[in-house]
């Protein structure tokens, strides 16, 4: 009996110390990691989505608060008008959260493109959501409202074969993005005016 209690105590103590240590390190590195991700992962995704914009979307960005959460929006200027924004949402994939950058034309409210940013999906299976251009390309031009679902669930999105969970994650991220856009539409339009050239 004594041995059993000792086992429980040691394991509990070890786990708590480990948890505390990791939380502290996570806290201290969070900001730097966010910056690095912006530079190396989100940056290229944003540039790919807003390709051909007259400005640099990485520097022309602003944040809007949605409840307690702050969202970053990246502005793309096309034909002299700041009419396109890109922002990030995420969906639950097979290996954790799948980050998705979504680009929207706010004039006709259509998707201009999506791109997977951070993910931990299986290489060669779920990771194709990022590497296979055909998967992301199908979103282009879709009206940006309502719910996005994969075809097996009765929706409009072609799922990657063998990676339905990842495809669902991407679809739900787009759905979340559409909801977020619906909530912040007016604030977004106000902010964008300041970028008019």
């Amino acid at each position, binding site marked *: 009996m004594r*041995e059993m209690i000792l086992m429980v105590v*040691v394991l509990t103590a*070890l786990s708590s110390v*480990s948890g505390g240590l990791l939380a502290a390190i996570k806290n201290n*590195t969070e900001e730097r*990691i966010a910056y*690095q991700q912006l530079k*190396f992962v989100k940056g290229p995704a944003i540039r790919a989505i807003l390709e051909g914009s007259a400005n640099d979307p990485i520097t022309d960005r602003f944040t809007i608060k949605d409840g307690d959460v702050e969202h970053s929006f990246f502005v793309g200027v096309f034909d002299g008008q700041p009419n396109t924004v890109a922002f990030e949402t995420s969906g639950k994939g097979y290996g954790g959260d799948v980050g998705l950058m979504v680009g929207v034309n706010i004039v006709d409210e259509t998707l201009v493109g999506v791109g997977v940013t951070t993910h*931990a999906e299986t290489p060669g299976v779920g990771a194709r959501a990022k590497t296979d251009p055909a998967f992301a390309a199908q979103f282009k031009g879709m009206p940006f409202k309502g719910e996005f679902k994969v075809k097996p669930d009765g929706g409009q999105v072609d799922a990657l074969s063998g990676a339905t969970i990842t495809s669902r994650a991407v679809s739900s991220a787009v759905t979340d993005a559409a909801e977020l856009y619906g909530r912040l539409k007016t604030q977004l339009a106000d902010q964008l005016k300041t970028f008019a050239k």
Partner: protein
Amino acid sequence: MAKTLAQDFTKGLWDEIPPFRLVLGLCPVLAVTKTVENGIGMGVATTFVLLCSNILVSLLRKVIPSKVRIACFIIIIATFVTVVELVMQAFAYPLFLKLGIFIPLIVVNCIVLGRAEAFASKNNIVRSTLDGLGIGIGFTLSLAALGAVRELLGSGTLTFYETPIQIMGPSFQPFTFLIEAPGAFVALGLMLCLMNLLGKK
């Protein structure tokens, strides 16, 4: 005593050098050694984990009940691996992108658990530190060597600090097979064979 202490350190560099003598932890060895830089990055990350887990396991060896020792070792190892993952994301993001999933997989690297179980849980902290450091440096050297062979023959370059340096002349035909996964097995096999020949006296 001094002799054994030195041995604790140096055995990792030749006599028990992983993965050539201690054929353990082959998953990262085969997967990340496409370039020298990746090999060294992986080696340094593993060395850090090995060193810290060896020290902690050795410190706690009298406290940890033997029935749950493996669970305790894994908690310790997993903690340090997560530390490495976070620090690498914060300070060496391009390297993290290349090593990707293989950083969290250090948790299941048999070398780390193997040293904790076979050495650190039975020896004092000084010896365990030297053992971890020796094995870690040996592992790094092996990965760098394997990475150098594969990269040099497979693409004719050597990569340091993100910049590939062209070593082979323009007439060199890259043997791209070595960069592929099967090439990793062949290169590792040949190097194992070479090590055995050299070791035979």
